[in-house]
């Protein structure tokens, strides 16, 4: 990891604990699905926090945006957005959307009626870093 996190903390209020295990669960934290897991030390302040995490894919540097809503020592919402700031990724995502023959097509997980996801989250690294930033700044 060579690029420092860009930090953009939004809000803050009172009392919460945010877990590193939350980060480990990131791949299954689908869109804004409520995320109930919460263990580690607090307290943190209630509110909605966002941070960007940088990571590196085989395409080069990428940025992922993570927004967490914290209330009463738990994470009540997680929202992840991938900023396609790498030209290769833009092109790649474009190809995903074009639906050319033999191109895979993405659908939002919350539109699919499944309880399990198999895959490998590209964003876990950036997500973990962003969560760490939020933890340190929400104290």
């Amino acid at each position, binding site marked *: *990891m*060579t690029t420092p996190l860009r930090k953009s903390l939004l809000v803050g209020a009172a009392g919460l604990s945010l877990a590193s*295990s939350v980060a*480990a*669960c*990131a*791949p*299954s*934290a*689908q*869109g804004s699905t409520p995320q109930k897991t919460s263990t580690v030390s607090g307290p943190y302040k209630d509110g909605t926090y966002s941070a960007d995490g940088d*990571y*590196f*894919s*085989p*395409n*080069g*540097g990428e940025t992922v945006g993570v927004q967490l809503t914290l209330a009463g020592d738990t994470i009540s919402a997680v929202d*992840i957005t*991938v900023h396609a700031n790498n030209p290769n*990724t833009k092109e*790649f*995502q474009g*190809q*995903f959307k074009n*639906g*050319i023959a*033999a*191109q*895979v*097509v*993405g*659908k*939002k*997980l919350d539109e*699919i*009626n*499944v*309880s*399990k*996801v*198999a*895959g*490998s*989250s*590209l*964003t*876990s*690294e950036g997500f973990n870093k962003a969560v760490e930033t939020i933890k340190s700044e929400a104290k």
Partner: protein
Amino acid sequence: MTHTGWSDFSFDGIGTRWEISTPEELPDGVRLSLLGVVEDYDRSYSRFRNDSLVAALAREPGTVTLPASAGELEQLFRKLYRLSNGAMTPLVGGSLERLGYGADYALRPLGDPVPAPRWEDVLVWRGTAISASAPVVLDIGAAGKGQLVDLLAAVLRGAGITEFLVDASGDMLHSAAEPLGVALEHPYDPSQAIGVVELHNGALCASAANRRAWGDGLHHVLDGATGRPIETVVATWTMAATAMEADALATALFMVDPTVLEGEFDFSWLKVYSDGHAAYSAGFEGTLFS
């Protein structure tokens, strides 16, 4: 929740999150047995802890005795080492450390990529006995998580539990009357899926080049023959009877032609390439969104 009404038992083990789902809540005794098997596995194979068996081989040449389950691991790695012409090797640990993916998680390359030592040069592995003629960093990660899924399933079956899903954060083994729909995560957007597969009495595993990426073009799926990360395939999925095979084959698909693997293994596969196209075998037909 896996199937409606099932109970989940979740815990952390070998660096990942586990969720075991069963129709009835698991008794405490079974939970303890499961956690014990996880701890034994970690203590045997983790290259991230000093007191593991493989850590001893990294310090100095010698022989260690692995657990009984090492026999089938050896057979599997031996076969894939041959089929991949040395690209898929349990000796890739040193190459990973070189690129920064070592026990200290420095995540900074220590120098140019180094090839893994050749199995035939440094390693004698016969079932539970493994000897190294030089310090070697064993990394059985390509099949280890899957094997542990199978070992935990064996604990459940041993306790008379026949219906379950053992899920190690996306690598899973299913056993139940009803099939389970599982989304295939979009390799570039975890809020999306590229398809849904029906998993029924078998294993589904995934591998992605970018799951643990830590530098420009540096990730954890390496070609052992060159020590360099593999770049053309971004994600793979496999289905097989055991999670150990499915897990290993998901990695093998990064470096071996699927038709070569099909000649020796009974499995289904799906590959997504960096240009966005996908290739798949019959078992994944109709699973991708269009």
